[in-house]
């Protein structure tokens, strides 16, 4: 007897291709997530419910756990401008900084953050980037006897005044656990230099608490 053959078709779809795509995307996201600017000085910022975005051109004063202050300009070009103003204004105090070559200044512009006293900047520029990870930053002096943070703020004001003073915006980025006195000292220095309005950088808080 002749058999009627019904062709059986499998309903199983080959998942291999889909799996490939999924893992490709996964790899991509993991890599991009990890490659945000690595923090030379770890700062665990507090959370808040503020929703304002951080401006692109901003000068951040960071305060770490130990209460040391660091400075960072978000745009490398600004760093060089501000450094030039430091030399113009306070060059006599720091002859080794005033003697920096243009190449050294460009290297300085590529540094992520300024975490050393002004007189140590030439040495800091000379440090190789891979060694920078283990480097212990002493922070920018901010006491009244050697108020270099104030000098930086002043220099920043002069540098932005050449362009547009309204673009100048300061932000404070403090560690959750840093003592309030260090932060208050930074605010005090800013007030001394007529900076009364600034941002506080926080991370977005979930609704769970």
């Amino acid at each position, binding site marked *: 007897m002749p058999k009627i053959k019904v062709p059986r078709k499998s309903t199983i779809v*080959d998942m291999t291709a889909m799996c490939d795509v999924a893992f490709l995307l996964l790899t991509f996201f993991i890599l991009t997530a990890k490659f945000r600017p690595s923090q030379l000085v770890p700062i665990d910022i507090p959370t*808040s419910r503020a929703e304002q975005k*951080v401006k692109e051109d901003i000068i951040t004063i960071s305060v770490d756990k130990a209460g040391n202050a660091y400075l960072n300009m978000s745009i490398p070009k600004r760093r060089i401008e501000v450094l030039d103003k430091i030399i113009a204004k306070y060059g006599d105090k720091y002859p080794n900084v005033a003697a920096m070559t243009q190449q050294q200044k460009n290297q300085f512009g590529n540094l992520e953050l300024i975490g050393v006293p002004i007189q140590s900047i030439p040495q800091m520029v000379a440090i190789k980037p891979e060694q920078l990870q283990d480097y212990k930053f002493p922070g920018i002096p901010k006491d009244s006897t050697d108020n270099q943070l104030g000098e930086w703020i002043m220099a920043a004001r002069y540098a932005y005044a050449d362009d547009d003073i309204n673009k100048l915006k300061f932000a404070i980025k403090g560690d959750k656990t840093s003592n*309030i006195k260090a932060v208050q000292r930074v605010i005090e220095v800013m007030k001394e230099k007529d900076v009364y309005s*600034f941002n506080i950088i926080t991370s977005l808080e979930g609704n769970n608490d």
Partner: protein
Amino acid sequence: MADIDTSQGGGHGKKGGKRSKKLSTRVDLTPMVDLAFLLISFFMLTTSLSKPVAMDLAMPKKDVKEKQDVKESKVLNLIADKDNKVWYYEGLHVAGLKTTDYSAQGIRQIILDKQKKVKAIHGDDEKGDNQIIVLVKLSDDANYKNMVDILDEIDITKTKIYAIQDLSDIEKEAIANGGQVKSFATSETAPGK
């Protein structure tokens, strides 16, 4: 691709009587795809959440000559202390400090309660905002997170008038005594003021 050909060659079947069972080595990849996409969504969500945001803070000018008198009934004082403790009292006279915490039921509720009281007495101002005045004071043992938390609560409760001030001696004494002021001096008549 993923499966290996397990079928024995063409001529083998006829010689031996036994037939080996064909086992498929095909693996079902569906759960693996599920997992991969789960991880993708996790990483996408966490990266977008860690973006920093900014909060505005304005400090008063240092050399302000004119001083405004404030109605005592509008004032709420918050003092951040160590171990995530907040002391608070109403008015300008340091008396009967109470403690609370940074939760939504704690400090936020206190600000909201005070706002209700202020509204009952003074009503809203011309812009429709509450007229409460919050004075934030930070003790030396407080940490930066406490300051941000208080400023955040002020922002959440839509408090328009607030200031960060230094602790007075009488407040320091009150905190050291667990909220009680032992000397009869009030903040205005405290020595050295």
